[in-house]
């Protein structure tokens, strides 16, 4: 059966915003400070902090204080849960289609 949890919901939510996806994409190439992200995305420091906060909540991003700046990096989100959920969802749907196909063939005498 499909596995759902609140973290998964929050992860979906975190990924639903194009700016946050842009931040993740940028961070997949290496760490960046809040200021660098603000400049890159044309946002205020507070705007970036807000987005980073959402990503941080689900561990998609971690931040570290380095001197006077805060450096952001990709985090250690529990993607095992997320990937397991997608895989389980995929298997469930695949199973439904297969059962339905077999049902129609059994009913019509198809060879399968």
């Amino acid at each position, binding site marked *: *059966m*499909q596995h*759902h949890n*609140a973290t998964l*919901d929050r*992860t*979906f*939510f975190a*990924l*639903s915003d194009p700016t946050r*996806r842009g931040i*993740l*994409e940028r961070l*997949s*190439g*290496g*760490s960046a400070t809040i200021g660098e992200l603000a400049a890159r995305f044309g946002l205020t420091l507070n705007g970036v902090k807000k987005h980073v906060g959402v990503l*941080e909540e689900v*561990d*998609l991003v*971690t*931040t*570290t*204080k380095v001197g006077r700046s805060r450096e952001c*990096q*990709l*985090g*250690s989100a529990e*993607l095992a849960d*997320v*990937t397991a959920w*997608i895989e389980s*969802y*995929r298997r469930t*749907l*695949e*199973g*439904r*289609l*297969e*059962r*339905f*196909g*077999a*049902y*129609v*063939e059994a*009913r*019509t005498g*198809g*060879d*399968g």
Partner: protein
Amino acid sequence: MTHELRFERLIDAEREVVFDSFTDPDGQTAFYGQDQTGWIVRSECDLRVGGVWTVEFGPSQAELYRHRHVFEVIDRPRRLLLTTTETRLDGSSFDTELEIVFQEQDDKTLMTMVTRGFPTAELRDEHRVGLPNAFDLLDQFVRARPQMSQAKSDDL
């Protein structure tokens, strides 16, 4: 941006038969069925655009999942488009869009099922103007993951 959960099955039956089976109670029960003893499927379908198809399914009365589909497009025998709200055991819900295309292939029917997932109803509505779906996003992120730098655990 076009990655989705997509499945295909070549079914040895005419296209009209496959389409009609999918929209009749027995076919819908087969779709949600499982071999498990005692597996429950209850399906009620109002087959018209804007009509609702509700399905309750699960291993026991105490563990029933619920899908509420709304028919957005009914193009017999070619295509169906449904929006689905899936309600979990804890009462929370998850929205998806399900598109089913039936194509003739020799004397058989290629049934293609595409699911796009959305964390909220608002995002589902926005999707209509091009927002990538939740499965895309997760898939992209999971793929990007091997390139990630190691996270540090310093205090924030």
